[in-house]
């Protein structure tokens, strides 16, 4: 039942190389392939690398195949939409090709920013608390952060600041 040795070698080499391939190379189609050709290629590669076809293989093989298949669907998703395909094809033509092999959705690498409040009062108390905190008026800051947290009990940033100011008050004692 085990897959052929040759297939295993093939999977290993694709898994190693995949980060250097663009979506056209992953689907084994030309850059001017028609939408039908892209779809046929997607089906052909899915038949080869869908994880269901390797369900009984050892985890290390299954893991690699899953990774390959995820990249195949990613390639198909981008290349089957004319808009994203256009953006992508241009992005891999330039000198930054190696950086753009994987399509970048919207803002990539967005940092989780501080949640400055969703309600008018929450925002107001939070700002007042911050001013007080910067002026080292920790007691005043605490009251404001408490009020802000009361306005928005779910706000993690408010809680973090409240914890910070409480820590300051403790260390002062």
């Amino acid at each position: 039942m085990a897959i052929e040795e040759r297939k295993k070698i093939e999977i290993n080499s694709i898994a190693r190389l995949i980060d250097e391939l663009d979506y056209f190379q992953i689907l084994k189609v030309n850059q001017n392939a028609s939408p039908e050709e892209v779809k046929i290629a997607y089906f052909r590669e899915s038949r080869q690398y869908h994880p269901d076809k390797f369900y009984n293989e050892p985890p290390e093989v299954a893991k690699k195949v899953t990774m390959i298949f995820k990249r195949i669907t990613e390639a198909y998703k981008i290349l089957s939409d004319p808009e994203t395909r256009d953006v992508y094809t241009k992005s891999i033509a330039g000198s930054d090709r190696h950086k753009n092999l994987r399509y970048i959705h919207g803002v990539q690498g967005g940092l989780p920013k501080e949640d400055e409040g969703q309600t008018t009062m929450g925002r107001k108390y939070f700002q007042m608390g911050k001013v007080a905190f910067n002026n080292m008026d920790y007691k005043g800051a605490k009251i404001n952060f408490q009020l802000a947290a009361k306005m928005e009990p779910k706000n993690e940033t408010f809680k973090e600041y409240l914890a910070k100011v409480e820590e300051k008050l403790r260390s002062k004692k």
Partner: protein
Amino acid sequence: MDVLYIFMAGRLRVGAGCDRFNFDNRLDYKEKMMAKVVGIDLGTSTSAVAIVEDGMAKVIPNERGEKIIPSVVSFLEDGTRIVGTLAKRRMIMDPENTVYSAKRLIGRKFFSSEVKKAQAVCAYKIVEGPNQGVVIEIRGKQYSLAEISSFILMEMKRIAEDYLHEKVDRAVITVPAYFNDGQRQATKDAGTIAGLQVLRIINEPTAAALAYGFGKGLNQKIGIYDLGGGTFDISVLEIGDDIFEVISTAGDTFLGGDDFDDRLIDYLAEIFYKEHNVDLRTNKHALQRLKDAAERGKVDLSENLETDISITGIVEEMAGPLDLHAKVARNYFGKLVYDLIQKTFKVCDEAMQNAGMTVDQLDSIILVGGPTKMSIIKEAVESYFFKTPQSGINPEEVVALGASIQGSALMESSTSSLLLDVTPMSLGIATAGGLMDRLIARNTPIPTEQSRIYTTTRDNQESVNIRVFQGENRKYDENEPLGECRLTGVRPAKKGGPKIKVTFEINADGIVEVSAEDVDTGQEQRITLNVSGGLSREEIDKLKSQHASGEDVAERK
């Protein structure tokens, strides 16, 4: 490949004619691992179990010859429990201790409107569980919804084992396509508790498509209209020889045949109220009998243009027992549920739009789910899609059949069929400003993944919390909270220093997994996703071993 085939065929011969006990003794561990795989349709109102034998998928009947088993669990006074038709009869006799439509509650939050609605009509006790979850209290004992579902799965397992005379411990279980992560996870947990290795969770409409097209070498675009007891799904697929590609799927997990019953119940209760000035809906026993009668009336209206509904002594008043008598015409029933049917078509519009197709591009329409047997639905579907739905497919069996085909496809990786399914809803994370940062769009083929780089906002910050949501709204608050990821053990550094790549994966079961690694060191980071309302690994294992003995309720009292 050939070798396996011979081996399996040989094993099957050994199995036939042996009783279960002996058979177990004869099998060594490895052979037991090769035991058969069943497909289970765990439905809101009914369930079915199927198996592929000699290349043919078939639904397995129980000892009473029933293939469609009511998804009802009744807890008897002596501590035993029963599942199926006999349990369903107890819905009237013993409503407090008889649980039905549990699937409507699985994976839901206690404060959701669906739970509130169930509390108002169900005679069994629904209480708040740990982690904002829901538990059911019967005879002073609490059961999670995964546990209730596991009782149904155990019965399906037993039916299969009795029929096959061998142990069954692997299954493919189906869920509505529009089930979210929590609901899928809870269903998978139910399988584990029932002592089943859940090979795969697949979507009901996809399973139905597989059963419809398997081995036929079709090249078609099809629509699956799946109206179950509690949920509605529409999936648009393209079948190309052996590949079943889901192009789009949409659904409503708050809309099903139960809602059609409710309309009739309301109507009957109104008539009764006008006549006797007694509201039957405030009496849970009367309501149960009314529900039973409404359900039968609904079925009757599929065959006849008019039905007589009468319940003698539905309620006891001072002057004596009162009877309910009513005549309902099919047309009138159609009017009562008109908006519900239209609601399904709004979902269909959405699916067609996402597929970038119009209804005339579809080659076939397949009806799935018991409620689609109603003639008013059949007629409405026909006029919406401009074509007669496929006949000759049993809408109550087709999902289990498809699940069993997928089960055998997974076991014999060489099988020609391949499912390319999608995630029904977008996955995203909460950002500042209340908006959801969409990581994975709906209708993306699964398995799939997306990564984001995170950093710290304070010096020496040790942990980062990431809130994960599912849904289409731009504001995360309007979407379903899936859980919270907590990234811990971040190396101490100045704020903005550590760069941690968090990868969100939707696996082939449609279940979300997260992993994280430090971009600079390449080291894996600890990250846990706490699904709200879910059971922990330990709880599942504990329940599994408690139930492993089979007759466990008595000792657990």
